[in-house]
Structures are given as C-alpha cells and as structure tokens.
C-alpha cells in the first residue's frame, strides 16, 4: 500500500522528476569532466570523455524512468495521446466510425434494457429467489378432462399440450398442508370482472383495476405497508367485514397521499369497503403485465360476483373441478426447486386423480409443474420474449455490421500506415507494443461510441416505449437504464473494440520491413495480405453485404405483413368512429331500468352536434367474443355460433351494409317481439340458399337444463364484418337487441359516427354522461382506428423498427463500401494512370472498378440470400398473409441493396475515371 502511494505521488510529480533526473545526470557529467580536467585533459575534451563514458543518455533515462514504476500506465498515456491525435487528424473517419458504432451499441442497449425489465428483473419483494409459482401441464386441451370450467389464461406449449397456473381452491388447501417444502403458500385471483372496478370515493367515480388475494398473500411476499395495514388471514373469510388495500400510486392519485387513504370508506361496484392500508411505491403485485390499483380479499369474489349475471359463483369457490386460483409459495431455506417438484407432484397427482370420474379424464390428468417465481407471473415474458429475441438478433446484426464496417475502415487506414509500421518495427519497436497501441486506438474508439451509444439508447428506449404503448396511458412496461444495462453496454463496447481492432492490428504489423520501406507512397501492390487471393477487406465487405441483405429481408417481410394487415377487409368503416365504455350496472342501475338508461343515453349522445349516428354494443366488434347456446328453432345449439348484443342503428353507425331485411331499430325494445340480425356466414352455414328472413333462432341460458332465454325472429342479414380480432376467420354471428332479455345488459361500448376528428367529441360525451348519472364513469375512450392499430401494435412496431434498421444498415454498408473502394482506387492511382495513358476510356475505368464491386456484391448477396432463406422461418409466426420466403420481400431486398451498392461504388469509380494520367504518373 505504502509503495502504491509513493508511486502515486511520483506520478503526480512526474515532470519535476524528469527535470531532476536531467539535473542529476548533468551534475554527474560535470563532475566527471572535472575529474578528467584534473587528469590534464582540455576542458572540451574532458567534456567529451565524460559524455562518452556515460554512454546512451536516452537509454539511461529510459532505464531510470522504468524503475519509477507505472511503465504500463505511462505507455497507455502515450498510446491514448497518440490515439486522440490520430483520431483528430482523421475527423471524417472518426465521426463515421463512432456514429455507426454508437448506433449499433445504442440499439443493442435499448433492446437489452427492455429484456432486462421484462425477462430478467425480479419482483421488488424480500428474497424473491425463494418464491415459486405452481403450474400444471396437460397433454391436450381436447376432450373430457377434470377441468370442467376455468377462469384464467391457459397457454399452448410450443410442441404440444397446454399449461396454466390456475387451480381449484381445494388444491390450494392441499399445497398449504405441505409445509415440509413451503414456509408459506398463498393464492391470488385476477378475475375478469376485477379488471374494471367502479370505484367511488366521496362521489368521485373512476375505473380501477382490482386483484383478489388470499390472507397470506402480503405476508408470503414479505411486503410491508407504507400506511395502515395490509390484508391478513382474518380479512379473508366468509362474513369478515369488507376491506380493501390500494396501491401507492392510486393513493396519491385519488387521496393525495398514502396516509389520507387509510380508514376511508369507498364504494366498489356499489358495495361499501373500508380502506385499511397502502402498498409500497415499488410494489406492483405479482404480474408485471397488469399492476392492480386495489387489492381485495379472495372472499370478496362471492360478494362482487353476486351482483353480476356472469360474475363469480359462490358454489365454484370450493368446487373440485373449477380451476381459478393462482398459487405461489415460498420454499423453505435449503429446499430446491427440484425437491419441491418431487415432493408436491405426487401429492397433487393423487388428489387430482380423485376428482376424475371416467377413463378419459383419468388419461389426461394435469401434472404439477413447479416454476421459479422470482419474476412473478410470466404473462409479460410469454408475450414479449420472442419478439424481443428477434429484435435483439436484428440489432446484434447491426452491431456486427458496424463492427465489420469500422474494421474495414481501420484496415484501409492500416494499409496506408504500412510504411509507418515498417519504420517503427525496423527501429526496434516490439510487435506486441504496436498491436497494443493499435488496440488502444480501437478500444478508445469503441468506448467513445459506447458513451454516445448510451445517449442513443435513452432516445431508443423512449421511442420504443412510445411505439409499444401506442397511445395507452396505463402502459406498464417501463424499461430504464440501470447499472446492469450500462454494464452490459460498457462490456459490449470493449468487446467490439477488441473485436474490430484485433484483426487490422495483427494484419498491419505483419509487415516485411524492407519491401514496405522501399515502396513508393502510391504504388503498393494490390493484393498483399491475401488469404487464397481474397483480402480480409474483401471478406468484410462481403459479410457486410450479406448482413445488410438479412436485415432488408426482415424489413421487407414485416412491412409487407403490416401492409397485408392494414388492407384486411373489415366489413365496416373504421374512420371517424369514437368508442368508449360505460357500465351502469356497477354504478347501481338495475333491470329493467338499466336498458332504458342506456337507450336514453344513446338519444342524448345522438343529439351532440356533429354526431351523425350513435349506437351501442356489449363489446366493440374487435373485442367481441360471446358464445352462448344458440341454434335454429328445432335444432340443437351450435357451439360455433357467436352473438353480440347491440343497440338500435348499429349497422348504420358502423356502416355495415344490410343485405336483406333491416337494422335493429328503436322499436325492438323490451316487450316487443325478440329479433336478431345475422351475418352472411351465419346465413350460409345454417340456411344455405334458403331465405333466412322470418326464420327463428333459439337462445338458451346455460345451466340446469339450459332454460329457453329468447326465441327470436331473423329480421335482417348483414355483410360479414370482423368479429373478435383482425385476422381470425369471421364466425357465424347473430346480432341481438340488447334490451330483449337474457343476457341482460351489463357494460356497453358506445360507438359515435362523427363528422371530423372523433377525439374532438370527448368532452361533450363526458359532460352528457356526467349529467345522466355522475356515478357512471367513462372508460376506454379510443377511436375505432386506434383500437384496430392497437391489435396490430406488434406488427406496426416491427415494421417501423425494421424499416429504420434497414435504412441504418444501408447507410452503414454504403459508407463502408465507399471507403473501401475509394481507398483501393487511390492505391491504384498509378496503375489507372498508366492504363489511361495507354488509351483506356473513362467508361472502361468506371466499368473496371464497378465490376470488382459487383463481384463482391454477388458473393455477399448469395451468402445473405442463403442465410435469409435459412433463418426467416424463425419469424414465420410474426407474419400475416405470406410465407417466410416471400419472393417479393426477397427480390425487393436484393434490388434495393444492389442499388445502394452501385451508388456506393459508382462515386469512387467516377473519381477513378477523372484521374489525370500525367499527374498520376508524375506522382509515381
């Protein structure tokens, strides 16, 4: 340590020390001369003798300095200074290199930060590593199974089978008993009806996202409240008083602070709850995809479900065949995932076998799978991991391209510095020392690019967030630059610096000193450092072309996919429609008054000046998806049939053509004969060529004996319109009048056909609904066009990003090509001069240069095409309306790239043809 500080002090006093050494040696010389003079030499001779005895003064100084330590740092300082000087001397080169690398590093950092936040980050709870999530896997979703009914998400596994993380409540109790593995087990349930809770606080209503949790949920996660207390076991039992916990953000927004929220009485879906506490700011539940505003005890599902016709049924709570609760546990210290799996799987197996009633059910029992729970539920990971890996691959290719580009430019420059290298080698510089110096230059270049790249990454993250959020205000995906990400960026920069610097450094120091020194400045032989007559530089150009082609093909595929999606025939007019949702039932409206309320609201909305038509439906067309037992009179219900409850003038508002009969009208209300309009698909599937008008449809209410709910006359046939998504086949749909019985109206999505921008009408809409009933909040306000864009958000993102990537690639590749060809032309100035002096035409010179460029291009394109054909099937699932080897995308990419190559090669070729033969020869 002592020695370290001594050296450090010396380093600081370096120049003083240099001066001191000079003085010390001068003193020595003086003394020695004095001595010689005393021996009888003349002063001048004495001086010379002293100097002679001292020997190589510079070497002596060098050796002495070496004893001061820090030789490596000393050399690094020299190298850095030299590197900065070289970079400053080649400003164009430096800025091109740094910009292209920075774009590559920035893009990688941005994508990586998203991966970090989605795929890698742990829940902000205590000791997340010991958490596990329980799942099951079943071989098939077809046929009979013990899973009679489910509430939650199931996922198809990539190869076969289905997996999900939902269990019957008795299974949860089974896991709770298994305390040899878990220190605590807890459950939670995000029911669909919880997603939009009507929360009324002192008369102010708004929609909030809810989540129900078991009594051990917060204790199991190890979360402490910032105010009040969190839900405990006593809160989660039948008959307990109704309590709620809210998120920190919600308490800020609605109460102006966590402390203010505690103890308040609030109405949730018109039921009274007491607010007991607030979760910490960083806590977002266990599903990164959907952070709740309100946490309620599991038992409130019964309470809230009772008021909704499709709500949670109390009898399902303890049912052995109803799969709904998510189960998580905390492993005891020392218990591994594999041990937990081994201990729990047989117990679950035994339990679930007891719920099966026939052989088919027994053959396809769900098997327990214990998964890591540090990151919470994997809904976000499942949705975004593949797109992110694809994007990471693409930006990785861009970085590789930028590296190849800079390596090539360095190589070109290194070739120009061959004489310098030869001179230095012949003067005794070690090859390692020179390689180190060149590497210092490239690493410095890379680090500067990395710093700039982080700036680009900040923009990139903002841009990507905007792109992914696509206008949604409650977008939950927040990527940020943290130390992990910055560390990754720094490591990436260093790696690229070494990667693109090493080859040129080794190449340029592999010099035969004598020939290199004898060479004239301009007349270096063309192919000196060749491997099978192909230079490293040519290989780099070819690989750049190949990589560019890959990226262009990707861009082509995604852009064509987007174009296909955007030209999908909707069957309705998406322009100038405002959509928003209201739920009067949650605000306390009851049957039959609720239907009248909705009808009155429609009238008031139609009266807004500029609103041409107004209607309503239980869901928007794009989000529709209701299947209830519906069939022709006298025939069994067909499960393929879909329904949509709509209000009057729905087809006129959405501009769906009526092919026969009429629209649903105001007269089709409660008490009047039940009617329905069917789409073409329904007519074709059920009536063939017969006229469906006047025929009857029967709707049944599922349950004991499927009670007859509605007997409807078909009064119209409409053209096929999209139902439940953009790309799915249009199913047979029956449109029912919303006010004519079961299913009774709950939430409604109003559609207003406006003149001009629909968003201009938002304020009038809010005002009218507030006047009609202040307890009813307006939510999900969007235009029809935005809703459609939202469903193809990923495709839009991919198309826009990849187009950006492709342009970037083209620019980088063109710059690289231009640099390489220019250099080659400059090197061959003499040769071209001679050719021209001997009578070669300018055109022939251009041709000669371009022929070489196109030769390289042909090889690069071939390799790139092979790679594109080989790899594009990995993005097949992202494409729509085309195959992964879409010829238009492939040929388009080749054409664009070829154009860019010719552009990049033509400029230097033209310059070559402008060479003045006399000047060139004189130069020689």
């Amino acid at each position: 340590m002592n020695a370290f500080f001594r050296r450090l002090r010396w380093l600081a006093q370096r120049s003083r020390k240099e001066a001191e050494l000079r003085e010390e040696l001068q003193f020595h010389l003086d003394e020695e001369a004095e001595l010689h003079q005393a021996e009888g030499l003349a002063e001048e001779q004495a001086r010379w003798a002293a100097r002679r005895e001292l020997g190589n003064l510079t070497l002596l100084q060098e050796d002495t300095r070496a004893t001061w330590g820090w030789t490596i740092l000393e050399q690094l300082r020299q190298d850095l200074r030299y590197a900065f000087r070289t970079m400053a001397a080649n400003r164009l080169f430096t800025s091109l290199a740094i910009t292209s690398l920075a774009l590559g590093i920035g893009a990688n950092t941005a994508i990586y930060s998203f991966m970090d936040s989605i795929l890698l980050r742990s829940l902000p709870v205590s000791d997340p590593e010991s958490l596990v999530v329980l799942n099951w896997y079943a071989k098939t979703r077809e046929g009979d199974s013990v899973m009679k009914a489910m509430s939650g998400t199931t996922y198809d596994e990539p190869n076969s089978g289905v997996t999900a993380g939902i269990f019957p409540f008795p299974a949860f109790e089974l896991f709770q008993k298994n305390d040899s593995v878990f220190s605590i087990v807890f459950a939670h349930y995000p029911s669909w009806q919880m997603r939009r809770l009507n929360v009324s606080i002192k008369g102010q209503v708004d929609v909030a996202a809810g989540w129900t949790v078991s009594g051990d949920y917060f204790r199991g996660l190890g979360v402490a409240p910032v105010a009040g207390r969190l839900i405990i076991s006593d809160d989660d039992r039948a008959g307990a008083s109704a309590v709620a916990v809210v998120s920190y953000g919600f308490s800020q927004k609605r109460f102006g602070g966590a402390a203010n929220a505690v103890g308040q009485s609030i109405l949730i879906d018109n039921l009274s709850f007491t607010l007991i506490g607030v979760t910490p700011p960083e806590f977002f539940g266990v599903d990164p995809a959907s952070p709740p505003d309100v946490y309620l005890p599991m038992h409130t599902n019964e309470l809230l479900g009772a008021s909704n016709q499709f709500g949670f049924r109390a009898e399902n709570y303890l049912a052995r065949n109803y799969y709904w609760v998510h189960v998580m546990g905390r492993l005891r210290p020392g218990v591994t995932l594999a041990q937990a799996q081994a201990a729990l799987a047989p117990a679950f197996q035994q339990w679930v076998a007891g719920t099966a009633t026939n052989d088919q059910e027994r053959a396809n029992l769900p098997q327990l799978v214990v998964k890591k729970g540090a990151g919470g539920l994997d809904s976000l990971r499942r949705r975004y991991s593949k797109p992110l890996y694809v994007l990471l691959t693409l930006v990785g290719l861009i970085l590789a391209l930028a590296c190849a580009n800079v390596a090539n430019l360095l190589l070109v420059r290194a070739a120009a510095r061959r004489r310098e290298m030869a001179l230095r080698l012949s003067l005794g510089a070690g090859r390692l020392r020179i390689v180190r110096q060149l590497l210092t230059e490239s690493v410095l270049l890379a680090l500067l690019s990395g710093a700039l790249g982080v700036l680009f990454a900040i923009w990139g993250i903002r841009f990507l967030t905007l792109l992914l959020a696509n206008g949604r205000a409650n977008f939950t995906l927040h990527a940020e630059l943290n130390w992990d990400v910055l560390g990754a960026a720094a490591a990436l920069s260093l790696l690229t610096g070494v990667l693109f610097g090493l080859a040129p450094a080794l190449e340029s120091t592999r010099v035969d000193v004598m020939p290199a020194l004898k060479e004239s400045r301009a007349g270096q032989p063309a192919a000196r450092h060749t491997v099978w007559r192909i230079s490293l530089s040519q290989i780099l150009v070819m690989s750049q072309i190949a990589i560019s082609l890959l990226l262009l093909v990707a861009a082509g595929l995604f852009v064509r996919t987007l174009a296909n999606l955007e030209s999908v025939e909707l069957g309705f007019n998406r322009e100038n429609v405002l959509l928003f949702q209201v739920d009067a039932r949650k605000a306390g409206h009851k049957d039959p008054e609720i239907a009248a309320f909705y009808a009155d609201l429609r009238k008031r909305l139609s009266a807004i000046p500029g609103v041409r038509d107004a209607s309503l439906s239980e869901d928007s067309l794009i989000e529709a998806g209701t299947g209830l037992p519906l069939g022709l009179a006298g025939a069994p219900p067909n499960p393929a049939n879909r329904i949509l409850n709509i209000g009057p003038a729905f087809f006129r508002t959405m501009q769906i053509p009526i092919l026969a009969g009429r629209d649903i009208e105001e007269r089709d209300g409660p008490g009047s004969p039940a009617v329905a309009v069917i789409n073409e698909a329904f007519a074709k599937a059920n009536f063939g060529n017969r006229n469906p008008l006047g025929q009857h449809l029967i709707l049944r209410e599922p349950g004991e004996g499927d009670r007859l709910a509605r007997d409807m006359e078909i009064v119209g046939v409409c053209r096929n319109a999209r139902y439940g998504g953009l790309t799915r086949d249009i199913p047979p749909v029956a449109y029912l009048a919303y006010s004519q019985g079961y299913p009774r109206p709950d939430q409604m999505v109003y559609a207003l056909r406006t003149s001009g921008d629909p968003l201009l009408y938002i304020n009038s809409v809010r005002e009218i609904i507030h006047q009609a009933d202040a307890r009813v909040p307006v939510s999900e306000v969007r235009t029809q066009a935005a809703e459609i864009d939202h469903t193809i958000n990923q495709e839009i993102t991919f198309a826009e990003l990849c187009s950006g990537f492709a342009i970037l690639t083209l620019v980088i590749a063109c710059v690289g090509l231009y640099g390489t060809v220019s250099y080659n032309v400059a090197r061959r100035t003499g040769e071209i001069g001679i050719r021209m002096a001997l009578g070669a035409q300018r055109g022939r010179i251009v041709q000669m240069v371009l022929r070489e460029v196109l030769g390289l291009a042909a090889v690069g394109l071939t390799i790139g095409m092979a790679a594109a054909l080989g790899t594009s099937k990995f993005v097949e699932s992202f494409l729509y309306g085309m195959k992964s080897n879409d010829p238009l995308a492939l040929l388009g990419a080749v054409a664009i790239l070829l154009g860019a190559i010719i552009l990049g090669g033509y400029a230097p070729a033209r310059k070559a043809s402008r060479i003045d033969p006399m000047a060139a020869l004189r130069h020689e």
Partner: protein
Amino acid sequence: MDRELPSRVELLQGTLDLLILRTLLAGPSHGHAIAKHIRRTSEDLLQVETGSLYPALHRLEAKGWIAASWKLSDRGKRARYYHLTPLGRKQLASEQSKWRAFSRAVGLILNPVDQEGP
C-alpha cells in the same frame, strides 16, 4: 549458453545494490561520488557503469532503502545526495550476511580444506 546471461546480470545487479548500500553506510553521497568510491576502494577492480548506477539508485529509492535530497556539493553545486534509510540499513545487514554466506560457500568449494581420500 545464452541462458546464463540473465543470471549473471542478476548477480551483478544484486551486488551493485549491496555495494551502493555499503558505500552509503559511511554517510550521504551523490551518484558520482558513489561510483568513484566503489572504484577507488576496490582498487579499480570494479568499474561501475553509469548506465546501471543511476537506474540502480532510483530502484533502491523506489524500494525505500535509500532516500535522496538536494544539497550543495563540496564545490558548491546542487547535487542529489542519497542516504540510507532505516529500512536500507536492515536490508544492508541481511544482504551482507547473505553475501558472506555465499562467498564462504564459494570459497569452500574453490579452496577445500580437507580433501577426502581418493
């Protein structure tokens, strides 16, 4: 053999350190005087190369065995005077005993006292 060369240099270097330390035991001195002293005392048998003297002095200084300060020389010029540090004194003692053991061992081999019988 080539390989012997470094070990000989090593030996010389170590010896030079020892000689410098021993010379400074008499009192502070500058580089030129140290060289002169070694030459004179060894009856001109040991010529200290300037090219290795100054690096050696700076190396010893870096190790903390000797320290330097600027003083006026006998003739009134500024000179860099080196003196032993307590650490250097200790080092000298141990180097000296090592050297004595080494030279005794070499002496024993070169001038054997009792020769074993044939």
